[in-house]
């Protein structure tokens, strides 16, 4: 079979080989239920708590502040819905941005339906908001600010540190949540330093297994469980712990933490080389959002004059995997709200954008060869 080039690491990532080894071992040996009293149970419990320490130290949190979940979506849902439920007596105002992931956007719409007032902060041409916008939107009855750390479609990084630190200077009840599903693993995160109260993370975006994630919950908060029916996770999330998944996730985190800045530099290098090759090609394009304040692994490109959907099929038939906007299913072609927020409805970029996302295992040569395939496809489509 022809070589397959995977440029969709923002959708999900392949598992790192040592993650697979770790999980295989765990599936063979650590099958005990962490709630069981016997030695197999105790073994699992020990491994779980060791993993929790690794997750905690990766963001400078305390292990008790880590709640294991099934992934980013659950973490976001829990953070938003349970904060609203807990704080409704203090206020019913929530601040968010126009380019949140659906896992944040939809629970917030749910709150709106339940009578909460929502302020949606628009983004600028870079796909960012400013701390000033948050300051202006803040009201005495604001209970939650939820801002995506780095956007999944265009990669723009939000001023999380500035917002968090500003909010901590106030004597205000507001809770600060950030969806760090895309940012975790390339950005240096320190929840204490950055004033973050709730932070959502997913394993499968950093070469770990699917179906695992965590929510960091600041110790001063107590969020009730969404899943009930057991005392796991200090009563914050019922259900038998997914030990093999958690151990695989732990391994993925360990690798990222060891490599730290190297990961960022490596992905940035792939992005830079891709763009350099684009400049050398005949493709007319514009980058959506900013290159200065963005995640190293996400690049959103408006390829002028060709329908992204057709281009994606051309690339797929040439064994290159990319995305248009965020993942979607059967015939569902709603335009990307993120691109609409950035450019306005009906802008050509909304239908002509491809997202290239870089990651583990990808080489410079592959990235360069993709531009050549892309150039051919663009030329073919323009001729038609």
């Amino acid at each position, binding site marked *: 079979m022809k070589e397959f080039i995977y440029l969709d690491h923002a959708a999900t990532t392949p598992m790192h080989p040592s993650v697979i080894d770790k999980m295989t071992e765990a599936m063979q040996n650590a099958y005990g239920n962490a709630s069981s009293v016997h030695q197999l149970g105790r073994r699992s419990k020990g491994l779980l708590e060791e993993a929790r320490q690794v997750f905690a130290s990766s963001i400078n949190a305390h292990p008790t502040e880590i709640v294991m979940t099934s992934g980013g979506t659950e973490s976001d849902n829990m953070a938003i819905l349970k904060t609203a439920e807990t704080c409704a007596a203090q206020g019913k105002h929530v601040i968010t941005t126009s380019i949140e992931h659906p896992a944040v956007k939809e629970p917030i719409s749910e709150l709106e339906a339940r009578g909460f007032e929502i302020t949606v902060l628009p983004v600028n041409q870079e796909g960012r908001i400013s701390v000033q916008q948050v300051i202006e939107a803040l009201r005495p009855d604001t209970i939650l600010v939820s801002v995506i750390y780095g956007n999944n479609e265009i990669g723009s990084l939000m001023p999380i540190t500035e917002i968090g630190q500003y909010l901590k200077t106030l004597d205000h009840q507001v809770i600060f949540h950030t969806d760090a599903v895309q940012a975790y693993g390339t950005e240096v995160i320190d929840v204490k330093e950055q004033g973050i109260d709730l932070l959502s993370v997913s394993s499968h975006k950093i070469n770990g297994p699917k179906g695992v994630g965590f929510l960091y919950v600041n110790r001063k908060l107590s969020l009730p469980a969404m899943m009930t029916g057991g005392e796991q996770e200090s009563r914050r999330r019922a259900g038998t712990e997914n030990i093999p998944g958690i151990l695989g996730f732990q391994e993925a985190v360990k690798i990222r933490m060891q490599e730290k800045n190297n990961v960022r530099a490596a992905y940035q290098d792939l992005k830079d080389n891709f763009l350099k090759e684009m400049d050398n090609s005949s493709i007319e394009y514009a980058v959506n959002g900013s290159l200065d304040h963005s995640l190293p692994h996400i690049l959103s490109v408006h390829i002028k004059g060709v329908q992204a*959907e*057709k281009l994606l*099929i*051309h690339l*797929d*038939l040439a064994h290159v995997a990319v995305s248009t906007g965020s993942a979607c*299913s*059967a*015939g*569902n*072609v709603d335009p990307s709200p993120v691109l609409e927020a950035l450019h306005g409805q009906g802008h050509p970029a909304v239908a002509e954008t491809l997202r290239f996302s870089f990651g583990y295992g990808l080489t410079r040569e592959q990235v360069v060869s993709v531009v050549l395939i892309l150039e051919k496809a663009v030329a*073919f*489509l323009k001729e*038609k």
Partner: protein
Amino acid sequence: MSGGVDSSVTALLLKKQGYDVVGVFMKNWDDTDENGVCTATEDYKDVALVANKIGIPYYSINFEKEYWDKVFSYFLEEYKNGRTPNPDVMCNKEIKFKAFLDYALSLGAEYVATGHYARIQRDTDGTAHLLRGIDSNKDQTYFLNQLSQEQLAKVMFPLGEMDKSEVRKIAEEADLATARKKDSTGICFIGEKDFKQFLMNYLPAQPGSMVTEEGEVMGQHEGLMYYTIGQRKGLGIGGNGTSNEPWFVIGKNLERNELIVGQGFTHPHLYATHLNASQFTFTTRVDRPETFKCTAKFRYRQQDVGVTVQLNREDKTATVIFDEPARAITPGQAIVLYEGEECIGGGIIDQAYQAEELLQYV
């Protein structure tokens, strides 16, 4: 690929013949219900199962806008005018073999193939002939009559040489997920739903009188659009006439919003000697003389009848004269011409006549 057995087997056969096959699911209509369930999503799952089984890539492409503009708007407009449209004919002409064909070409395809029961024969000079499917019970050339030579040049119908039962057998043997799936019935966007209910969502129903030719009121109708010429069911008139024969719809008076009814299957008002049709096109390359004889169908699955066609090339209209008077000609349906096995073209029925008299069918 629709997620049905016919297109599944079409893909399988072509793959086996060595073609580089790409499956495309067309989403033409959004029927998401109150529970968020959409038949398209369910059908797409079957496309995924079949495509993975036979080892071809597959994609879902949305043609909802094109379908709405070119097929559904036409469909409503026709009903509004008291006619009985054929959306499948229009869907083939404007969507499957135009919008979709163009899309496939832009993906680098050389042909599009569908699971229609029809055959294409190509001469050495490239001329394509649209022939009836071998399975006469399933032959779908009636719905393909508006295709042009240019369209046919890029089309394949691998099932045309087969019986439906053979198609099912092939699907079973290949263990395709759709092997035993029920055939879809009715108009695709209405599906199993109640037709009256569906139409009511889009067009206001204007109830009126059911009258005889002599003007005697026989009852109430629910809206002229719900009735077709020659229809017997649903009139609710028992006896009350000059005989005990059943009642039939024999005409419509749009201006007075009256449904004209008459007694007896062979009511004289139901018989036409000739009709006028528009949007007349030919699938063939050669020009016909202005007057010629051939056979024709004026509804799907009907036996051919002998006709003489008088063409007017300028405005693409024609007068079609029946060898024997024809019963229940329906404005809005297609009149489709055949020469032996070949479907040579057709048009859309506008008016029916009995000798010199215009039959009041719309």
